[in-house]
């Protein structure tokens, strides 16, 4: 009994630390899941006189992908994201975050899409990053799935990879498409 209490306390501490090891400190739980998608209305990259808004996407399952030409992992993600869009025909808005039209990057976004291909339904230009903050951006790339009612259902932080597309995103999109609008 004399040794049992300290031993149990030590065991509990070890268990707690082991649990902490498995946690990803960068995965911040997003408060948006199950909440209406934050609204934005932003100029389109190729047609700046036109606007693209969250309202335009109502009634269908869609994806919002935050990206920038200065973001290295977006480049890595691009092929995988393009495959997801090609396979599911999911309408995807690419939110160009603090990139096109900024002092530092000018029109690099256009060159980026020209050389890598443009899989997006529309590219929304968020020069000052205000829409990004509204969506709780921590670091690009980030990918959201929004259902027919305009509710955010899923967030993927960081570059999407093949396994995540096959095991999480495609099944989720198929499931959401079966739901009533």
């Amino acid at each position, binding site marked *: 009994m004399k040794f049992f209490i300290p031993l149990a306390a030590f065991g509990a501490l070890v268990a707690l630390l082991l649990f902490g090891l498995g946690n990803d400190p960068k995965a911040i*739980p997003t*408060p948006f899941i199950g909440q209406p998608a934050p609204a934005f209305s932003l100029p389109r990259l190729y047609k700046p006189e036109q606007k693209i808004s969250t309202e335009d996407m109502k009634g269908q399952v869609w994806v919002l992908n935050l990206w920038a030409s200065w973001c290295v992992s977006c480049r890595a993600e691009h092929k995988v994201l393009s495959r997801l869009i090609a396979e599911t025909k999911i309408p995807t808005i690419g939110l160009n975050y*603090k990139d096109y039209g900024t002092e530092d990057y000018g029109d690099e976004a256009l060159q980026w899409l020209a050389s890598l291909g443009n899989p997006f339904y529309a590219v929304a230009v968020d020069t000052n*990053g205000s829409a990004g903050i509204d*969506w*709780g951006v*921590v670091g690009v790339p980030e990918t959201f799935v929004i259902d027919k009612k305009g509710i955010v259902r899923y967030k993927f932080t960081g570059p999407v990879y093949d396994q995540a597309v096959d095991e999480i995103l495609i099944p989720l999109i198929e499931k959401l498409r079966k739901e009533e609008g």
Partner: protein
Amino acid sequence: MHTRLLKSFLVALLFALSINASFAVKIEFHDFKTKQQEQLYLQLVAELRCVKCQNQNLAESNAELAKDMRDKTYEMVIKGATRADVVGYMTARYGDFVLYKPPFKAKTLLLWVGPPIFLFLSLFMLFKLIRGQKNQPKESLSEADRNSVRELLASNAKK
């Protein structure tokens, strides 16, 4: 001797100052209409956490995102937002994670009451231990022990 001491003190001071300087972050200059707004802004950027570099608050961090969040805070404060408005805005987007001072609710109960409970528990254990020591029976010598001691002393005295 005194000058040497002073010299080493000055070197140490210089060293400490240079360390401080390397941690200082360039903060934008903002104009405030009132002293209260300035105080509120400074309080908020110290209390809100940078979600990009998680061990820093907004005031300390020079991450791009922290700057955006400072700007947003400033913008809201000069428009007359209260502390609750800004905190509400940030938690709606980044969750309680953004607060260095998390709200008191069921999920954070252990976080708030854990340390005091732990403190009281350890104090209780400590007092119990000390009192236990006081009440320990004093080992008195048996009559046989006393006799053997007396014999030893007597034998030594003879020598």
